[in-house]
């Protein structure tokens, strides 16, 4: 497949995640949109890791492995981020009994 298609698919997914962050008020859904944006970037990394593969196969058959390992590390960081973030959201829910981010405006006052 042409790499352009993967590029535009990832851009569309990233933008949908961005729109979700900007239009929703539920903290959990905003968090899920961030996960969607991370996944869009992962998809693009994997597609690019397969881009120059055939041309350089004779020179270096391991080309592109770095991209896929980056995706692996992004998934690791995302899992750690989710555990801490959900703990913070649960703590917030315990204090204000809502997940509305409107209640998180204390820095303004």
């Amino acid at each position, binding site marked *: 497949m042409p790499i352009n298609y993967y590029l535009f698919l990832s851009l569309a997914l990233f933008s949908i995640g961005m729109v979700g962050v900007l239009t929703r008020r539920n903290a959990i859904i905003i968090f899920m949109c961030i996960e969607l944006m991370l996944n869009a970037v992962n998809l693009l990394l994997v597609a690019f890791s397969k881009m120059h593969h055939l041309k350089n196969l004779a020179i270096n058959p391991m080309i592109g492995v770095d991209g896929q*390992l980056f995706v692996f590390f992004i998934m690791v960081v995302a899992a750690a981020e989710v*555990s801490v973030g959900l703990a913070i959201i649960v703590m917030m829910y315990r204090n204000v009994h809502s997940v509305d981010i409107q209640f998180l405006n204390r820095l303004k006052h």
Partner: protein
Amino acid sequence: MNITPYIFWFLSVMALFSALMMVTSRNPVYSVLWLISTFFAISGHYILLNAQFLAAVNIIVYAGAIMVLFLFVIMLMNLNRETEPQKNRWLKLIGALAGGCLLLVMVAALKDAELRSQQAMVGTGSIGLIKVLGKELFTRYVVPFEISSLLFLSAMVGAAVIGKKETPETLKS
């Protein structure tokens, strides 16, 4: 007949539709389910690109672990359609416009890029296999791997400390 383009378009439409439904659905539980559908579509893309290890990890870690965690938290808080906070219509419109502008700018910047003739190798290559990735992970990338295990440990401790029930004595101090 080559079936790859059909699979590609099917998975792309599925990913985009599920992502849109995730953002627009009122009920948070439906949002989680649509996001799981998006992750399965992205895993299908990984399989199409012959990145089998990442496809398996994506399903196990994202769809299996992270999304179940989200679902647990949503059910724990008993969120549903009625308790869902809504922004007013103008803010939603402005948010959608801003995201659309981002998409427009990125597409305009990248549509004439020199990538037009490049192909992503679909269904070939062995770099996505567990054998190759595992060898690389435990030789050249062994230090980042160990650091990520430390990151996990600290995230675990952090989540436990943050999620700890606050007693009245600790609140006073």
